[in-house]
């Protein structure tokens, strides 16, 4: 791994496999995500895309293979450690905190960055309250960047579907990640919202370039092929747990294996 010149990829998945009983969900998948790129994962339902996310983010243990983060092995590391290293994710089926307000949902994302001296927290000193206010402001600003700041104090359960998706992204961004894993963020959105999503992702990355110390790399699972073709720098296509294609959108679009397995005659249509 370290024998080649240049910095290691941000995320490297190496022959990763996951077996559930007799079912092979992920079959020796390898891919590398370079810093700063938008990397897409395509594939039909059940191809193993979400399982791959779960393997990377520590929710499921792989049966074999390895995951490396900036050259460091994180295979099988627990979710909170993966998050601490700089990976944040959203979920296909939305996992918001139902008893918390929108603002509090995002504040949870700030968990690792909101530590305060114990005595000050216990006594509720002015310094403590000031820092709390700063953190609250940061959370509120994240809501604002997602366009849902006016919902800050509402219970997260009272939001529309599209708003909830954006809330989850806001929470993930609160972790100040270097790599953002988005699991079908456009699911359930109409065409207009899908278009807005691409713009949203570009805007988030632009924001990062200005404010954060590092750029934001994105690894995204999606079904909507035109969206992915337009959005992603590179793509990998999974089918039945195996990687059947890897490359730029143009390369993948022309790959016969992909056409056969998934795209059908879709390359002819443009959105």
């Amino acid at each position, binding site marked *: 791994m370290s024998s080649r010149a240049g910095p290691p990829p941000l995320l490297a998945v190496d022959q990763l496999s996951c077996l*559930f009983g007799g079912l092979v969900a992920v079959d020796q998948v390898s891919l590398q995500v370079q810093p700063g790129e938008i990397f897409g994962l395509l594939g039909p339902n059940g191809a193993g895309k*979400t399982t791959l996310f*779960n393997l990377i983010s520590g*929710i*499921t243990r792989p049966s074999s293979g390895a995951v490396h983060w900036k050259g460091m092995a994180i295979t099988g590391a627990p979710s909170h450690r993966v998050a601490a290293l700089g990976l944040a994710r959203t*979920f*296909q*089926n939305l996992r918001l905190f139902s008893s918390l307000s929108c603002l509090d949902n995002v504040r949870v994302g700030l968990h690792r960055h909101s530590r305060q001296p114990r005595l000050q927290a216990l006594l509720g000193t002015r310094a403590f309250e000031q820092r709390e206010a700063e953190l609250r402001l940061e959370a509120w600003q994240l809501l604002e960047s997602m366009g849902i700041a006016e919902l800050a104090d509402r219970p997260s359960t009272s939001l529309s579907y599209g708003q909830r998706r954006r809330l989850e992204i806001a929470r993930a961004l609160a972790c100040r990640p270097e790599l953002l894993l988005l699991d079908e963020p456009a699911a359930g959105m109409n065409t207009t919202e899908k278009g807005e999503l691409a713009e949203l992702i570009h805007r988030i990355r632009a924001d990062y370039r200005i404010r954060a110390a590092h750029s934001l790399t994105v690894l995204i699972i999606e079904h909507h092929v035109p969206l992915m073709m337009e959005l992603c720098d590179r793509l990998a296509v999974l089918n039945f747990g195996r990687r059947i294609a890897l490359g730029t959108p143009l390369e993948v679009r022309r790959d016969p294996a992909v056409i056969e397995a998934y795209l059908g005659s879709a390359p002819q249509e443009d959105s």
Partner: protein
Amino acid sequence: MDTLLQILINGISTGAVYGLVALGYTLVFSVLGVINFAHGAVFTLGAYLTYLLLGGAVGANGLLAGLHLPFALPFWAALPIAGLLTALVSLGVEASAFRPLRRQQAEPLLYLITSLGAGVILVNLLQILLGAEGYSLPTTALGSLPTTLSLAGAQLRTVQLVLLLVAAVVLAVLSVWLEGSRSGKALQAVSEDPTTARLLGIDSDAMIRLGFAVSGFLAGIAGGLVSLSLSISGPYFGISYGLKALGVLVLGGLGSVPGAVLAGLIVGCAEALVPAEWSGYRDAIAYAFLFGVLLLRPQGLLGRPQISKV
């Protein structure tokens, strides 16, 4: 009472009861994924019902003081009848403690709480109605069988051998039913994968009720066997069995039928092997096993590690 044979018989007898109780837990856990904390109370009810059906009389302390059925059945009739009655009660527990929550898709934690409540109500109702004193075996229970038998030079209590026989028969019938019959296999299907089972046309609600009914039947039989072979020391004695059976359940592995039986025998024999001077600590054996299992092998002897979908 000191021969190894006697100790083994004691151990296996106790173990058989633990196994039956643990099996009841396992069945409900298989189809619903939660532990029915009213199980120990149903077990206690089975013991009292069997006692009454065997012709026993209620003491003077409860509201139904002096209650006495006008007949006295032999054990081979009393046990199944008690079992059927407890099966019905178990269905009542399902309807009151589990179904309302299932409709609300409540989290597993809440089922523990409501079933605890159901169990507490049952046991305390028993106490109010039948009083808190202990009862021992009515003399007509065994019918015409002698009280002790001679085997390999030792005097063994017939009730224990009866217990073993009944337990073995129940276990055999249960296995045959689970593997061989439509309903048994349907029950297993629901426990493996509820969604697919429903897609295949299996009514999971009906299967859940079936699971509770069989579980209640097992609890009733187990309670009846204890009332047959030992005495009932009061309405709370079943709580102890119910709690220890949780240790047996964890040792065997949640959801494993052979595991429950195996673990029951292990715990029963371990308890029997405790020497007389430490006999007060016998009750702690099951829990010691429990902590040991959680420390070393949480899925138990024969349990399957559970996978959850994200």
